[in-house]
């Protein structure tokens, strides 16, 4: 990977994070009903006390100083103390982050691998039954609410068949490897939901890439060389479809990490999404802000890595 490209991408990422923080700062202060106002907004509170409260929150200083303070605190990882957990919000959120990643990343990777296989297959046989079927399914799935799909799976597999637990993360009685198995047992329906919802649309994306790649001259050359169809698919088609797949992933990451709120609610999965909901329900503003901000930063970081992976597989991007 070329060094200047990397530097450019890192600067871009830092700028985006900076912009996101600025937006959070503006939102938190500009929205009506913000928490500080709840402390001093009561008209019965005397003027001196109001000043004291403002000073305690640093609200007596000019906005730009508040802003710098906010950035400094973020850089130090100090985002305040949660009302409900009574400890640093950063530690609460960072405890939850791995669980959300565990829930969303695994099915995403499996989906991408499956989509490559399926996409190349139906792309090479475009217009055939398998192609039409998967394209139809992908189109219909755009209209299926993911959370409802998850509910249906729970309804069938957990309630009717009794194959999986209704919710929760693991059996508290288990230890060691049994605990890990129990974890998989609990997360499986969540994984299945994300896998089934994402794979068809990923596959159709790969298929469209494959169809356009098939018209390229290097495919004709490869055929003329007498390469086996299997070799052409592996070396020329698959390889070229990989880069764009990652670029599509960057468009989906925000939706997937954000959408985790819904899946985590259904499975009572204690990740970041459920934390957002908890914080909102308990009016725990520092926790709510921190969770949202850290979700945003995670999305930006994930995008950055997906981009890097894309350039690894598709060198052309680097020179754009």
């Amino acid at each position, binding site marked *: 990977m070329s060094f200047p490209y990397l530097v450019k991408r890192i600067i871009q990422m830092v700028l*985006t994070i900076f912009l996101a923080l600025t937006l959070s700062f503006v*939102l938190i202060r500009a929205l009506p009903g913000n928490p500080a106002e709840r402390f001093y907004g009561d008209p019965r509170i005397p003027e001196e006390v109001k000043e004291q409260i403002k000073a305690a929150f640093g609200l007596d200083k000019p906005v730009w100083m508040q802003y710098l303070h906010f950035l400094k605190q973020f850089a130090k990882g100090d985002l305040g103390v949660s009302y409900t957990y009574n400890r640093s919000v950063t530690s609460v959120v960072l405890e939850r982050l791995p669980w959300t990643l565990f829930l969303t990343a695994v099915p995403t990777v499996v989906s991408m691998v499956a989509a490559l296989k399926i996409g190349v297959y139906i792309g090479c046989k475009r217009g055939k039954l398998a192609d039409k079927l998967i394209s139809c399914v992908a189109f219909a799935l755009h*209209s299926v*609410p993911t*959370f409802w799909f998850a*509910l249906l799976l*729970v309804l069938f597999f957990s309630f009717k068949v009794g194959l999986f637990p*209704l919710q929760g993360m693991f059996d508290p009685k288990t230890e060691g490897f049994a605990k890990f198995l129990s974890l998989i047992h609990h997360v499986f329906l969540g994984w299945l939901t994300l896998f089934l919802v994402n794979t068809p649309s990923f596959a159709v994306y790969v298929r469209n890439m494959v169809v356009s790649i098939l018209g390229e001259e290097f495919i004709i050359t490869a055929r003329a060389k007498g390469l086996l169809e299997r070799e052409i698919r592996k070396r020329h088609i698959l390889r070229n479809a990989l880069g764009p797949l990652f670029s599509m992933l960057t468009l989906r990451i925000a939706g997937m990490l954000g959408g985790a709120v*819904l899946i985590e609610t259904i499975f009572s999965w204690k990740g970041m999404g459920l934390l957002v909901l908890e914080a909102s329900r308990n009016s725990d503003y520092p926790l709510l802000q921190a969770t*949202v901000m850290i979700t945003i930063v995670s999305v930006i970081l994930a995008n950055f890595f997906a981009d890097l992976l894309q350039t690894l597989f598709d060198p052309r991007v680097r020179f754009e």
Partner: protein
Amino acid sequence: MKRYSFLKHLWYSSQGKFGIITLSLLVIMAVFAPLIAPFDPYDITQRGLRLQPPSWKHLFGTDWYGTDIFSQIVYGSRISLIIGGATALGVTVIGGLLGVIAGVYGRGIDTLLMRIVDFVMVLPGLPIMIMILTYVGNSFYVLIMVLVLFGWAGISRVVRAVVLSEKKRGYVEAAICAGATKWYLIKKHLLPATYPLLVVNTAFTAAGSMLAEAGLSFLGFGDPRVISWGKILNNARTSNALVLGAWWWIIFPGLAIFLASFSVMSLGVAAEKLLNPKLRDRREEV
């Protein structure tokens, strides 16, 4: 293409036909909800009738409070359609306008707008929407505004791309040479060129915002005063319908959400095929 013949052509494609029929039925359901719903969807006093499975009297069964689910779904169509329509309108107007501005004026304005678009598109919408709704309070109008806030970016980028490629076409350059003003160009040539994309994007936005509304209502962030499909599912969740095995309480509202979104999407795709000559030619070959 005249409007009459456009609708006629839409009717001739199977996707268009499906979209028109389903969407019309939903609109009729929403407009005449009080006449169609057999029971009061807000009546939570019929506790003796709680959790009845579907029957001829209660088509989709009843919930934990004895409320008829079919009636709730009939009334819920109002929210879904209004949210879908209003958001799509807002997104199309704002996104389309900003896209045209970026494409026509170029330079600094373009760079700035596209940077903002890039930024908005990487934001995880749902958690931020939840934060905003927690601060401002759940209401119908805030919901629409929030959905527009997160929806305009994609459409403006697409519109910009169309405007940029159209600007280089001979007829536009000829118009510029003939002394056309920017406003004339936009009105006469550039904006009409974006219509096919705008139509399909409007449809997709409408479908997407219906789903987003359902998700937010499912989490308890819908307008508390009105019933919506997402809210029926929220009630089902908070009343543990899964544990109670009340499958009808979960399946039917979800099907309604799916049908509404699917019909709008089908309509959008059918319209795109008609409006985009390239796709239309391909269709006629078949």
